[in-house]
């Protein structure tokens, strides 16, 4: 994983600052860096979003393809996650170098979406046991500036919000053979409700305190962090400890409380940005990577 090397003195400076609730870039312990979100950046996908959180730069594309439902869930569609840690982020990821981190992030995404309420998978079913929509959620990591998990989960939520799936009808003739008809109107599409899609809040334990949205430098000072996925209502859908250090149970409960509080604020501001952007409609000037 992309990381920086710090001297002892630099680490002490960061740790002492965190104890005083004043971080190197002037933030408090529970503040996020400013987040830039833009949706609909890649026009040949069903939905896409780009998120920039400090120096972390994420592009997510969602493609809807027709597939067969899984045997154990015959009347539901499903989501497939793939994370590409491209060499753009750091030369260490060249060739197969980024595969480990990519798989780790993809597995975390599978886990936070592995519950009934996150996404309405039944709406992705076209024809029970035969056809359903498969949403391929492809994450592209373009630059690594700390706090990857949070940025990726925000980008995934924004891309799912932007996703438009063409409406299809199943026609059945007398002999019982089924035919799928695609709607003629390109604007006739279904959208997913992202109300309950969780976002990840990562809390890094630094000294005696914990911080949200750690930069690469702060991540280098932290021995362990807790990854909590929260929905907009503050429901925790998944939790995981990462890092080589250990955490005591008390601080885990403290961190969970913080993540719920921070998560709600994060969801609210994300929702308002997404709705604001949508209200501008097609007149919106697309910035993409040119801005």
């Amino acid at each position: 994983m992309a990381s920086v090397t710090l001297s002892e003195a630099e680490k002490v400076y960061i740790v002492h600052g965190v104890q005083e609730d004043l971080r190197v870039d002037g933030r408090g312990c529970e503040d996020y860096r400013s987040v830039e979100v833009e949706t609909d950046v890649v026009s040949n996908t069903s939905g896409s979003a780009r998120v920039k959180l400090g120096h972390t730069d994420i592009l997510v594309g969602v493609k809807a393809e027709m597939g067969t439902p899984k045997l154990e869930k015959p009347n539901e569609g499903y989501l497939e996650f793939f994370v590409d840690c491209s060499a753009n982020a750091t030369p260490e990821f060249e060739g197969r170098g980024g595969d480990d981190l990519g798989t780790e992030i993809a597995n975390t995404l599978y886990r936070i979406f592995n519950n009934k309420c996150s996404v309405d998978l039944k709406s992705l079913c076209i024809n029970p046991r035969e056809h359903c929509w498969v949403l391929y959620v492809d994450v592209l990591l373009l630059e690594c500036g700390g706090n990857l998990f949070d940025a990726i989960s925000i980008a995934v939520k924004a891309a799912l919000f932007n996703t438009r799936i063409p409406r299809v009808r199943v026609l059945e003739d007398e002999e019982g053979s089924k035919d799928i008809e695609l709607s003629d109107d390109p604007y006739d599409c279904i959208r997913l409700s992202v109300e309950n899609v969780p976002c990840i809040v990562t809390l890094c334990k630094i000294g005696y305190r914990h911080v949200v949205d750690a930069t690469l430098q702060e991540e280098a000072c932290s021995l362990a962090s807790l990854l909590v996925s929260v929905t907009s209502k503050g429901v925790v859908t998944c939790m995981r400890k990462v890092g080589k250090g250990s955490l005591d149970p008390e601080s885990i409960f403290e961190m969970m409380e913080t993540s719920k509080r921070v998560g709600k604020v994060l969801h609210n501001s994300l929702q308002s940005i997404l709705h604001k952007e949508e209200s501008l409609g097609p007149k919106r000037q697309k910035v993409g990577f040119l801005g």
Partner: protein
Amino acid sequence: MAGLELLSDQGYRVDGRRAGELRKIQARMGVFAQADGSAYIEQGNTKALAVVYGPHEIRGSRARALPDRALVNCQYSSATFSTGERKRRPHGDRKSCEMGLQLRQTFEAAILTQLHPRSQIDIYVQVLQADGGTYAACVNAATLAVLDAGIPMRDFVCACSAGFVDGTALADLSHVEEAAGGPQLALALLPASGQIALLEMDSRLHEDHLDQVLEAAAQAARDVHTLLDRVVRQHVREATISLGD
């Protein structure tokens, strides 16, 4: 693609361009802060990002170091969502490896590698959306990124594709025109000297027409050069203003 008219009787192409006309090009240098050089280019709907790291010490095995010049290392990858049908792997397949090799040849011809012996220059190109002419877009983006990194080059490298339909050479093919399966030519040019850094032609074309197609591609590459030059000057101007000078 039967029945699709690539060039109308009035001389217009499917997307309304004239035969020698380029798609709209927009570019930006210095997209990322952590890399040594980076650039982004849009040619119509083809979008590519290029990032340059180096010159730095050789990574991995020291045996790869060249005693008299720098090693140019290129990786081409295209996002899984970049094409119409979803790709399974972003890089490592045959096409990506070939593209990486071509990029390497192109930039070995342009970068003054003898100035940095025993070191390595990494060029990573990422296609975000593919709509024809990906090789050209990658070369153009990589040129800007190498310039942004401040690595000395002989000249810009400007690339463009060209095709041949009904006795007319078409410049800067889009995906629809590429998919129609006619002859295709990819050209990378060092515009100041007119030297060719890479030339590749697929499918068959009568020898008599080669001259015409080559000239169309070269003219298009010179047009690209004018545009890239403008981008670089604009970028440098903004950089000096922000320095307060």
